[in-house]
């Protein structure tokens, strides 16, 4: 209906929107072809559900003129449940993960984290691979993946790698992925024993479509007399990357959860996370709310 120059003009007027004219889209039909095309076109941007990439594209913030569309790779879709865990394809959507029976039953924090992403329209498109590769400090699936100690499997022309989720993140929007390297699978093992307590808390400005001010995931196994066998706790949005609470975990593991110990653990939180002031919240708010989430969890409130 509109002349072709319409969208061109758009781009010239202050670079409003990405201009589709002359964009190259590589559309591999299988993983091997995807890896080959990516190594031949290292400037290409992998595209999964597009819920991060297209936002950047629409606002004219992407300068790559080549896209590597992964959406046709059937092999990278779906979730496979085995005896001891799940193998999640990078193209599995948040909707698929939040409703998968084995994940709901054995990895409920991951299901809950994915169900808190965006709104239903975003969850039908947004993928776990895209969430991870985008490496936003506010990626909502990360704290759950961190306490379940997920592994990210990658593939490139050079070969395959398997990285613990925490080692995949290198900073704000930065990953350890090398040029030409793609995420091909995410493996999450079921905990050997079901935890005695678990929590997922996302705090944002509203229910739907909100990025986290802080998001925490916790698993706790208790032994006789209230002694902590193991605590695993992680926070997102309160540091450049998701953080496991090393100092807090070390302080409580093997000890009885008394009121004093809980207060000591909460005081140690400042060693583990480093929230900042930004458009979504303040350093102080994030610190106080995160501490309250941790305290309530340890106190069993």
């Amino acid at each position: 209906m509109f002349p072709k120059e319409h969208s061109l003009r758009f781009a010239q007027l202050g670079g409003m929107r990405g201009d589709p004219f002359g964009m190259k889209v590589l559309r591999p039909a299988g993983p091997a072809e995807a890896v080959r095309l990516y190594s031949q076109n290292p400037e290409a941007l992998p595209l999964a559900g597009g819920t991060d990439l297209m936002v950047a594209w629409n606002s004219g913030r992407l300068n790559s003129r080549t896209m590597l569309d992964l959406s046709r790779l059937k092999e990278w879709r779906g979730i496979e449940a085995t005896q001891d865990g799940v193998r999640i394809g990078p193209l599995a959507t948040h909707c698929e993960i939040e409703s998968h029976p084995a994940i709901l039953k054995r990895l409920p924090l991951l299901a809950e984290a994915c169900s808190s992403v965006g709104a239903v329209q975003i969850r039908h498109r947004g993928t776990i691979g895209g969430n991870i590769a985008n490496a936003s400090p506010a990626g909502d699936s990360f704290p759950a993946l961190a306490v379940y100690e997920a592994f990210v499997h990658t593939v490139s022309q050079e070969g395959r790698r398997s990285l613990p989720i925490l080692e995949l993140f290198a900073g704000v929007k930065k990953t350890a992925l090398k040029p030409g390297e793609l995420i091909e699978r995410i493996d999450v093992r079921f905990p050997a024993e079901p935890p005695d307590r678990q929590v997922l808390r996302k705090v944002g400005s509203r229910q739907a479509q909100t990025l986290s001010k802080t998001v925490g995931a916790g698993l706790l196994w208790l032994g006789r007399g209230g002694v902590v066998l193991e605590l695993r706790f992680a926070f997102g949005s309160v540091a450049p990357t998701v953080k496991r609470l090393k100092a807090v975990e070390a302080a409580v593991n093997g000890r009885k959860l008394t009121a004093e110990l809980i207060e000591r653990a909460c005081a140690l939180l400042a060693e583990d996370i480093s929230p900042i002031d930004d458009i979504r919240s303040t350093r102080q708010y994030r610190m106080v709310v995160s501490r309250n989430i941790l305290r309530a969890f340890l106190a069993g409130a």
Partner: protein
Amino acid sequence: MKIIFKVNLQERTYDGDPFKRLLDVLREDFGLTGTKEGCGEGECGACTILLDGQPVNSCLIPVCQAEGRGVETVESLGLPEKLSSLQKAFLEEGGAQCGLCTPGMLLSAAAHLRSGGRTDERSIRQAIGGNLCRCTGYQHIVKSIRKAAKKPRRTKSGVCISVKQMLKRDRKQILKECSQKSTRCASRSSAV
């Protein structure tokens, strides 16, 4: 690049830049202007369409990703002279004011009800959580959707049918008519 996919049950061919947004292809190339643009960044839901039956934001989809798939736009819900029960409820309950959010609201609601989603207020609010409305304050929208969901329905033979069945029937019939009068249907704006 040629990209073939179904729009409102009809096979359509798009020939052009593969990275054009599906939203723009629907509006500019196919003349289906019922789908609106609000924010262009996935926040507002005005551009909601159904892709293989699931609500998604068409402003975030390059047309090449629609290849081989089925798209439904608001035009498939009803014709001006033959509105679906959901559209009627929006009219009766004041669920639409300026109308910008309405196509997206209708599709989110239709997808929710068709899939057998719960019809309590909370579930409906969740289903339309990705659709912003600047006019109604949502109250009337929720009321409209609940009304459409609740209305006891009788077929000609007097049998009560469920909302899910009802919407499926509405949809089948309208889509049939839509494809018969395809040119007319395509040149219309939102049927709301």
